[in-house]
């Protein structure tokens, strides 16, 4: 009885699946899905390497400082960095007075001590990076109806994080002629910019790194677009994962200990079972 019931229930599900499969296969043959421009022209991020990659990777602090400079002078006009405080910048190798000076260069929201009204004041190391727009509506209004995303976690919030950031910043181009020939309706709309590294190919952000020398690096590095993109991508690896070095270093200690403990455990296991066939 149990078997008959079980086989009936089994047939219920398998026949329903076979029916779904058959209909799906039929549709697939009679109306094969159309190929889209995104499917054909979207590119995977470029192959790019950073000092922090790999199991022994460490931040290149000089590069992080350059990347911070790019963020400060270019990106921060539109993009917030809400999870990062000025005090965190000491990890980039800045001294305490330098961090104080950097913080003081930003205006952060404050309260007038005499009237209680909202105003702004120079930042302090304990403050977080201020947002460039008061709210999402202001952000949309200033950016062709697109909200510039927060950058703190950007390299963890996209596949291939830092490589994606680097590829996107250096990937702007004109629409390929083949794309327009094959998909005339996929022409980049006015106000958007073609970028094959962006999921739907057209991006509201105008090319932010427009030419060599947009920032001037204090350490003498040549500020090419490629260099600036790499530096700011490296900086965003740090903002997303400030504990990266500590994590990897701790990891090696823990693995070393566990290896030792496991070998001891294995030896005692062999010892205890030595005379017991199993």
């Amino acid at each position, binding site marked *: 009885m149990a078997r008959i019931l079980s086989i009936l229930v089994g047939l219920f599900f398998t026949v329903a699946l076979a029916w779904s499969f058959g209909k799906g296969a039929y549709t697939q043959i009679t109306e094969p899905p159309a190929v889209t421009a995104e499917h054909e022209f979207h590119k995977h991020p470029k192959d790019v390497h950073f000092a922090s990659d790999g199991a022994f990777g460490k931040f290149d602090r000089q590069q992080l400082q350059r990347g911070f400079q790019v963020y400060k002078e270019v990106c921060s006009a539109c993009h917030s960095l809400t999870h990062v405080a000025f005090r965190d910048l000491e990890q980039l190798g800045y001294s305490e007075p330098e961090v104080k000076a950097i913080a003081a260069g930003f205006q952060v929201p404050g309260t007038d001590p005499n009237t209680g009204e909202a105003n702004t004041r120079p930042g302090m190391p304990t403050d977080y990076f201020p947002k460039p727009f008061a709210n999402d509506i202001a952000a949309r209004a200033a950016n062709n109806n697109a909200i510039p995303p927060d950058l703190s976690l950007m390299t963890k919030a996209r596949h291939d994080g830092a490589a994606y950031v680097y590829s996107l910043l250096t990937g702007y181009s004109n629409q390929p002629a083949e794309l327009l020939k094959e998909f005339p309706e996929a022409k980049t709309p006015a106000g958007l910019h073609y970028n094959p590294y962006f999921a739907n190919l057209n991006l509201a952000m105008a090319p932010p790194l427009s030419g060599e020398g947009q920032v001037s690096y204090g350490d003498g590095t040549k500020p090419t677009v490629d260099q600036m993109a790499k530096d700011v991508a490296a900086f965003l690896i740090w903002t997303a994962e400030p*504990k990266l070095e500590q994590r990897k270093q701790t990891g090696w200690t823990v693995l070393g200990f566990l290896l030792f403990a496991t070998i001891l455990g294995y030896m005692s296991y062999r010892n205890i079972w030595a005379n017991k066939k199993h």
Partner: protein
Amino acid sequence: MSFPWANEYKPSHPFMKWMDEKLPVPRLVYNSVGGGYPVPRNLNYFWNFGFLALICLTIQIITGIVMAMHYAANTAVAFDTIEQTVRDVNWGWLMRYAHANGASAFFVVIYVHIFRGFFYGSYKAPREMVWLLGVVIFLLMMATAFMGYVLPWGQMSFWGAKVITGLFGAIPFVGEPLQQWLLGGFAPDNAALNRFFSLHYLLPFVIVGVVVLHIWALHIPGSSNPTGVEVKSESDTVPFYPYYVAKDGWAVGVFLFLFAAAVFFFPNALGHPDNYIPANAMSTPAHIVPEWYFWPFYAILRAFTQDFFFIPAKLMGVLAMFGAILVWFFLPWLDKSPVRSGAYRPLYKKFFWFGLIPAMAVLFYCGGAPAEEPFVMFSQLAALYYFAHFLIILPVVSAIEKPLPLPYSITESVLGHDEGSQIRPAHGATEATHGDTAVQGA
């Protein structure tokens, strides 16, 4: 209960004697995981995964309690409190990564544990209750993991919650009110986040309770073993301590090594990048996918693309998804073969290795892939096999299969001979099978 030859707990220290009279906890420990619990001597490494699961549960509870100290279940700040834990709390990043990857490790271990049970027939008499409680633990784990994933209130948290609670909406008549009652609103919001946090904190302790019952039920008949032949005499067993404490101990070492490698060097490999974007009800992710450990069941849910007679496709998917796990409850009665171990079941073994395992692999892969062809068609075929395997093939195979001859005893399978078998008249091993079954039935 235990075997008559089990060592007896004999406290020698006056304090332990005193303790044994008032509250015999040391005796309980001794008889559960000490020298007083005889275990088959021939267990292979698949039998280490129960202990590993206990380690995982412990890791999750400890790291989870620490995470809860720094977390606020409020949609306005939930995402930020997790980031603050990671950035500003001492070793907060370690707690967070250990907790997130600990869930994955727990499921890896539990899947091996469950499939060990499938292959070696661990669900069969006299261990049906152990198996049933195990399936309950698995369901509780899934609920806990799902609600835990909602707590960071990232994009996948929000949309995952929306999709999964939406499944209840497929139930006829009561679906929609039920869904709103579960969420405390029309969509996941503060009310849902709060109750998910409350339940996410509660359920692990319910799991602990059911684990106690699971182990208790296991200790009545004792552990099964790779031959599936029940323990007959003292030479078949070794005391849990020191033998299996040592074996589990070094297995824990290997497990923690791999776990630490993931936590310290690939902490985000199993997570979805979208969950590092704060929840946004106005922006739907391109592909909503649950965590990897739900993929097989998510693939089954999405495999039903057509209405079946009067049953809508969505309801079919929901029925099948829950049915795919609920069918495990009936295994002890669907598989009637008197032979437990797949090693002695030539036909069942083939269906296990060339049917169930590939079908699960396909379902795992397709559940994480976008809902596009050819993935949907693959998952339909794999899901078809999955249901056929448990509901049709298993009952039929167990009726028609001719099992291989079983060893007389565990001792014989290990040493090649067993003095105990000499006292019985000479007989074929097949007869021993029946004799063995009769003993189990008694």
